[in-house]
């Protein structure tokens, strides 16, 4: 075991092969350290599975299983049922990308929730099939360039809209579903911790920037994720039994252009009449999400300013404590 860090377990440790600046590696390390090593992690096929288990070397310091692309939720259902049969309460967590959630894994996920399995399903959404070479998924936003939605004479990137997966999940009336992103660690921490106190199926949708596929500087993963929230394009919400129970208010709304500019996948929208139409379309989509969730009017202190704020000596860390280290000493 790697125990270099005395203040967290590093359930997802170093040496993995994620690209430099990977938002998904960042998100998965945060989530798994918040849950800790005493859990069973089921992984769908995707970037996370590929880059953490390269060449027989595993970056996981917790029980971890991978089967195929579509069936992570079904595998987790079986793991959970087996544990229940043995009278054990070890948490079961699924990790999947947007392909394994929005597209290929959706049926198994729906079934898992419908059957009421006590499983946390975490979707790390990087908005395309990245490790196979950036193909569009049903999570890819409108007007994005991917290798299978190239902009040209007849199109300005992807024709279709990003699938509203959180609404689909919430329609199952499950106990807890929430969206989060890497830029707001205290928000992510609160949602993971809350999810772990609830029994039954739970769902976390975490926006995870991808410097390769989004074509932004590797240093900007957190900045871009913050802008996705501040523009209203990615609302941070909580839904319990289908009802909206929490939103992170926008202290101020930023124009979508600030989010789009640093990303090469939107580059084709700047400098043409057709692109300008799509820029207005994307702004309208952000405005609609802000209205729908009341992101500017919500009566809450939990806003993009207060949550981002830093403190001398930090704002709290991880439950995955280093007690095991003491045992070995």
């Amino acid at each position, binding site marked *: *075991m*790697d125990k*270099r*860090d*005395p*203040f*967290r377990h*590093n359930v*997802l*440790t*170093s*040496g*993995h*092969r*994620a690209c*430099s*600046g*990977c*938002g998904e*590696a*960042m998100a998965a*390390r*945060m989530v798994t350290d918040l849950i800790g090593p005493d859990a069973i992690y089921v992984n769908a096929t995707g970037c996370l599975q590929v880059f*953490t288990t*390269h*060449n*027989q*070397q*595993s*970056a996981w*310091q917790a029980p971890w299983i991978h089967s195929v692309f579509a069936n992570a939720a079904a595998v987790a259902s079986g793991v959970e049922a087996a544990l229940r049969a043995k009278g054990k309460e070890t948490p079961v967590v699924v990790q999947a990308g947007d392909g394994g959630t929005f597209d290929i894994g959706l049926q198994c996920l729906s079934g898992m929730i419908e059957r009421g399995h006590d499983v946390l399903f975490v979707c790390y959404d990087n908005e395309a099939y990245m490790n196979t070479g950036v193909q569009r998924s049903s999570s890819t936003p409108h007007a994005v360039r991917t290798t299978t939605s190239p902009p040209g004479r007849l199109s300005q990137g992807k024709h279709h809209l990003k699938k509203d997966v959180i609404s689909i999940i919430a329609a199952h009336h499950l106990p807890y579903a929430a969206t989060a992103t*890497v830029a707001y*660690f205290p928000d992510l921490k609160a949602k993971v911790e809350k999810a772990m106190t609830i029994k039954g199926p739970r769902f976390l949708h975490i926006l995870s920037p991808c*410097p390769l596929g989004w074509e932004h*500087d*590797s*240093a*900007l*993963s*957190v*900045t871009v994720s913050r802008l996705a929230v501040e523009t209203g394009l990615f609302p941070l919400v909580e839904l319990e039994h289908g009802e909206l129970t929490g939103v992170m208010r926008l202290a101020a709304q930023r124009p979508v252009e600030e989010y789009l500019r640093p990303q090469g996948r939107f580059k084709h929208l700047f400098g043409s009449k057709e692109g300008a139409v799509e820029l207005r379309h994307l702004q309208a989509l952000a405005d609609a999400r802000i209205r729908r969730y009341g992101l500017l009017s919500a009566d809450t202190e939990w806003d993009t*300013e*207060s949550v*981002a*704020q*830093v*403190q*001398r*000596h*930090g*704002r709290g*860390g991880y439950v995955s404590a280093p007690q095991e280290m003491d045992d070995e000493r």
Partner: protein
Amino acid sequence: MSASAKLAVAPGSSTAYQSGDWRSEQPLYRDKWPPCSQTCPAAEDIQAWLALASDQQWQAAWRTLTERNPFPATMGRICYHPCESGCNRKHLDSAVNIHGMERYLGDLAIAEGWQHKLLTEISQSQRIAVVGAGPAGLSCAFQLARRGYPVTIFDAQSTPGGTLSSGIPDYRLPKSVLQGEIDAILALGVQLKLNTRIGIEISADSLREDFDAVFLAVGALQPRTYPDDGYGSHSVMSGVDFLRRINAGESLSLPKHVAVIGGGNTAIDAARCARRLGAEVTVVCPQDPHGSHHHQQGTEMPASLREVVEAETEGVNFRYRAGVRRLVRSGEHLSGIEVARVDQVHDRHGHFNPLLFEGTEELVPAGLAVFAIGQEADWYGLEDLSQAGEKSGVWIGGDAAGKPRLAASAVGSGYQAAMSIIATLKDESFVSDTHKKAQIIFKQMQLHYYPKQPRREGEINQQRLTGFDEVNKGLVDGDAEHEAGRCLSCGVCFECDNCWHFCPDAAVIKKESGYEIDYDYCKGCGICAQECPCGHIDMKPVAE
């Protein structure tokens, strides 16, 4: 190790693979030198002592502060705090109340009776004489005494403190506060010989024989005078003499109207004192008011804006761009001063030489004219010493060295002189104390990570014109913690955990204090540097 060698692996942990090989840039934790310290004439490590104060380690904060400045209670009151003009926080909301915090720590030290500590047990044999018990002399003596050197301070006056004592009115600096801080310096074993003027009571030559080094910090107490034969009478005085007599407790009875000539802080001090003694006061200032020339030096009045605002609040009148043409007398008495419009303040050689326009004369009624038009060092009896130079064991500092005339500059020059004296006595080369660390401006920081928090001030005494009671009250307990917590810690890590949370490669290791980058795994993505609120992390290209 070649890439192909690493690919042939047995089942195991990914940590066997060193992803640090991918790196083309590497992050480095690097302390910067914040603008408050860059602008502090005493070069205090302000960020460091504010950090300790925000953790409520009050005594440790005071000790860090007094490393450079043994006068926090005094300077917290009278310094014009260039540190706050530099403070990066003004780009977020408003500057940290640094002077308020400095005063709070200084007052706490006096109240709690904290004593300075010697830095060494070793007593040095070489003796040092300091001439002048003002801020420069006391600061130098303090630094030398802490390092084991026997120091004797000589001062011509009957009280120590120099201009701090004779030039600063009680409403800005109560005498007990100054005395408290001087006592703490003397408690280190510094000898103080008052009423002893070198060149008169003791000859300069015998001083050089008896001591291994001499520090001349005689101040600038000799006023520049207006050519008039009525000086010293009850109708014409210099600002320096006027303030000295008030500070010595003399009860002056003033005429109904007083004119103060000059645009510096001495003029403002004199005007505010005269108000307190019941006079109608007009300040005749050759320059324009603050802000009229975008703070261009030389054309705006040099006095501190805060002092001017307080003087205006107290009912002092200002005549800007006005120069004295003559004093108007009726018999023995002064009836007023004739002023005229000043065109340019400096002549084409850059010398202060106001050009007055003929035909613009007006009479400013005054029974007393106080000229505060500059002051210089009085070298009488010290002529040879002042020319001796450092190679002959004589150093000059403070106002006498003609440096910018802020008390904090004097404190800073006392420190520099002490370090230079020690280096010379030890036969080492003295490296001037310019900080090697990189500077940092707000654009290198991520201000959105900091909460907006309004600045807090001490209360203001509303009954101020009835006497010489202190005008500005200090920060109260809760406010001091609040203000210390407002420090952005520009360029210096405050352990916010951002780099640790955000590293996708678990290559930032959190330690009991601070963090360490594990370069075996750091891929050099740059997120830690990008998201560091205070600009503590630099990205540097990796040398091939």
